[in-house]
């Protein structure tokens, strides 16, 4: 199979959808960091020029304009850029996009895609390293896709654009240039279906985004000592594949959740409480969360690595719950 980068896979998905549906538009900042040169970027620029809009630095208004257009069936993909910037549009995303369908009693939909790049990027410092997924997950009415590899990125982006719901598509800066095998031609990956990225009998590691990559690395180290970790890649938070999580915990009896959000009310908190409520008896040991430490992200990259979750901390947590 061909190997392309995460960013290229996304550009391909957006390009395919713009070709398939004349009502798909793109607010063009930089498309998830894909440079020119890329064939899909070039095709979008040439063939769909009349559906590309250059954004001023107005996150709030653009998110709401895209939402209003979505109510009329125009599907806009708005790459907001660094996830932190999304907080400028928090009200518009949570109170308008996320509420339109419910408030109209199901008569109105708001199919819009907000793409953001989250996480510790290597020098992003305090204001450019945000992971908004847990805050977003607390808001009803918004789907959240969060891929860990190019193949998933493409299939999930296609699903996001075709979804009748507002979707926040969460990428990680450190995933953008990573490459992976991606099937030829169009394919969708449904939301709500987790993917077992590694099978294992001893401990379940639930993760998403870059943390899946880090968990796979940790799993290698654990395997060297005979600890076989099973890695559940959530792929989407809304909807959540609770079944896959519980099934894996049933098998391993041990749980670690890796998450780049700070600990309080995080994705890890949520996964652990789902298991505590619905599968406590399955647990042979208390679960552990591996989050970004409860601090802001310092610009110093050694400190940044230190405060983030990461292979070492994930591995240590897995050993702890197994030991």
């Amino acid at each position: 199979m061909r190997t392309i980068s995460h960013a290229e896979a996304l550009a391909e998905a957006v390009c395919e959808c713009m070709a398939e549906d004349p009502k798909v538009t793109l607010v063009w900042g930089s498309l998830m960091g894909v440079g020119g040169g890329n064939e899909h970027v070039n095709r979008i620029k040439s063939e769909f020029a009349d559906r590309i809009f250059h954004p001023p630095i107005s996150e709030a208004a653009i998110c709401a304009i895209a939402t209003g257009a979505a109510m009329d069936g125009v599907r806009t993909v708005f790459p907001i850029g660094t996830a932190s910037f999304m907080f400028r549009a928090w009200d518009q995303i949570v109170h308008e996009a996320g509420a339109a369908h419910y408030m109209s009693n199901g008569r109105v939909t708001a199919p819009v895609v907000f793409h953001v790049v989250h996480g510790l990027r290597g020098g992003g410092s305090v204001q450019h390293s945000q992971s908004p997924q847990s805050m977003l997950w607390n808001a009803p009415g918004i789907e959240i896709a969060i891929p860990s590899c190019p193949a998933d990125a493409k299939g999930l982006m296609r699903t996001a654009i075709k979804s009748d719901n507002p979707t926040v598509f969460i990428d990680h800066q450190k995933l953008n240039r990573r490459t992976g095998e991606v099937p030829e031609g169009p394919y969708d990956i449904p939301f709500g279906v987790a993917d077992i990225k590694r099978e294992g009998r001893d401990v379940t590691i639930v993760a998403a985004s870059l943390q899946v990559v880090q968990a796979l690395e940790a799993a290698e180290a654990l395997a060297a000592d005979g600890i076989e970790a099973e890695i559940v890649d959530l792929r989407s938070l809304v909807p959540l594949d609770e079944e896959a999580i519980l099934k894996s915990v049933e098998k391993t009896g041990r749980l670690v959740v890796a998450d780049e959000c700070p600990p309080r009310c995080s994705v890890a908190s949520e996964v652990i409480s789902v298991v505590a409520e619905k599968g406590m008896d399955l647990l042979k040991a208390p679960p552990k969360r591996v989050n970004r430490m409860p601090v802001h992200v310092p610009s110093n990259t050694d400190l940044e690595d230190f405060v983030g979750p990461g292979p070492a901390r994930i591995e240590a947590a897995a050993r702890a719950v197994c030991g």
Partner: protein
Amino acid sequence: MADARSLGIFERMILIRRFEEAVYDFHQQKLFSGHYHLYIGQEATGAAVMASLGTEDRIFSTHRNHGHLIARGADPKAALAEILSRADGTNGGRGGTFHLSAPDLGMPHTSALVGGAVPLAAGAGFAAKIAKSGGIGVSMFGDGCFEEGVVYETLNLSRLWKLPVIFVCENNTPGAVLKSAGGNNTSNLPEGRVIATPRALGIESHEVDGGDVEAVDALFTDCAERCRRTGEPIFIEALSERWPGNFYSYPDMVTGTTDMSMAWNDAGIGGEHEAWYREQDPVLRFARTLIAGGHATADDIAAIDAKATRVIAEARDFALKSPTPGTQTVQAHVLAGRV
């Protein structure tokens, strides 16, 4: 202005007035709770604006939305049922006074957050531009929106992206009309006029007496035509005398139930609110214009009012009879296509 058109607008105006009187009465009876906002005193603007809009156009409103829905032709039955958050309401009882909407009439979503709906209306213009539908987006909003940055961003974007949208700012600041002479005309913009901001952004901008049906209709008809043709945004500031009963969170019917006969018989007019009855109330004002212009007789006006009163009476019964929504469906429609 043709008789049919002006009488049509008047019908909507008196229907709005009777509707709002019913809403007030429902709240007095504690049939719904929480704060709410009436459109009394602004009927001329909403009714005249809607007269030039078609099925392909989209209108987005605010917390003060009742009049806009009725002006657009929404069924008072469903609207009044929504005021009571009943099952037969426009939003199935989920929205209430803040969020009346009519997707089937091109009013998909009403935001109760100040400035919330302004960019959504620009988005409708964006959609019309992409779909080449020939429609325009219309934002009906209050002067307070000029205190929210997202509205400034939206004005800039609509100009930058050339979106077919008309921004109708209903300035009901106390004394707005007087103050428009040059002073502070919105409570929290210390200088200049709200109109100065869209002008600074290079947007075609107009101001009009929002209580003058003919003036609003003439201006908006012209603007709507141009907006459709050029695809460029237009800003209109409609200045209206604030209804004396319009207080911050809870209105007070200080001017009483409207007595249409004041339009042709001023014998009983007087007291604290005399100026309201004689010059400001846009419904009485337009009734007098119609009579003076020979478009209608006092009897015609009385007949139109009687019909509106009857329609609202039926709507009241309908709303009161409508059941409360069942709890079994409360989790439906959080996400489309998922249960």
